[in-house]
């Protein structure tokens, strides 16, 4: 197996924070839905936005880790992936 040449520590911290954020956010939305509160749909909408922004942040951080490790080809690939994901959203909206 090839050794990973970059430290994933910042990525682990980000993903952990996102996991807790998602859990708390969707717990609140589900609790509000159970009580029949209309704010739940609005919060669910923003919850999905947070999930998508979280994915973009994860990708940008991975790109930064590649840049720091001088893996410029992978750094470029990360941005190509980001462009593909964003252009999909823009074209479909």
């Amino acid at each position, binding site marked *: *197996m090839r050794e990973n040449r970059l430290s994933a520590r910042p990525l*682990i911290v980000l*993903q952990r924070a996102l996991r807790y954020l998602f*859990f708390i956010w*969707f717990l609140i939305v589900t609790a509000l839905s159970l009580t029949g509160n209309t704010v739940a749909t609005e919060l*669910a909408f923003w919850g999905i936005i947070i999930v998508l922004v979280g*994915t973009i942040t994860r990708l940008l951080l991975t790109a930064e880790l590649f840049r720091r490790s001088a893996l410029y080809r*992978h750094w470029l690939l990360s941005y190509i992936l980001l462009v593909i*994901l964003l252009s999909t959203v823009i074209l*479909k909206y």
Partner: protein
Amino acid sequence: MTVDLLLYLLCGLTAGLLGGYLGLGGGIVMVPFLTVIIGMNIKAAVPISVAAIVVNSIASSTEYLKKGMVDLELVMILAIFMAMGNITGSILSNYVPATSVRLIFTVVLVYTAFAFVKSKPLGEQTAFTDNRRRYLPLCMLLIYITGTLAALIGIGGGVVLVPLLFLIIGLPLTTARGTSSFLVGFSAAAATAVYFFNDRLDLAVTPPVILGILLGGKVGGYLGTLARPLVVKVLFFVVMLYLAFRLAHEPLMRLL
């Protein structure tokens, strides 16, 4: 309303529990649960499943990252092809009828059931030589097809990705699972965005399913480490074949 919400929560919980216990992403369990047990249309179930996969990828790949079991360099190359495949799949889903989607899913379930049963126990699994230079173009093509299929039927694609990374690229099985778990999050996010911005993502159902998969995934992953491989295999085989039968029964009856 309350009963419905609890059912959706239970769906996510089951998908997370079984997915974590059996080492799968959850989509392969979630879509049949939503369609067969809750009775949701498969075209409504797919976007919910894809959104939950994004969250599950972020939650479950953290442990693999911690143990250095994610090949980040490979992820970036393959994620592009997976994302392009996902976009193709989500566009195709507008034109492919629900009956065909159910039948495609049935084939994937049967394949997964038999592939899982035939797989060797952990002790016998060996890492092959790193073949990425040799087989990367082939892998890119296969990943594109996997991405298309995954978005069409609402799974992350782990069931195809893991064997691909293990058998063709030659990653050790745990690294293949970790890499797949990390990778599916990006591609599923593209599909989620497409469904979300086309108002095809049910915002009443998605939150409890996501909450359930977060809870179930954690418990399932822990239970999976304690489980006996034979029990896991038998349980998986029975569940997959039952779901495949239930999914295919109605469309096949209509065709015959």
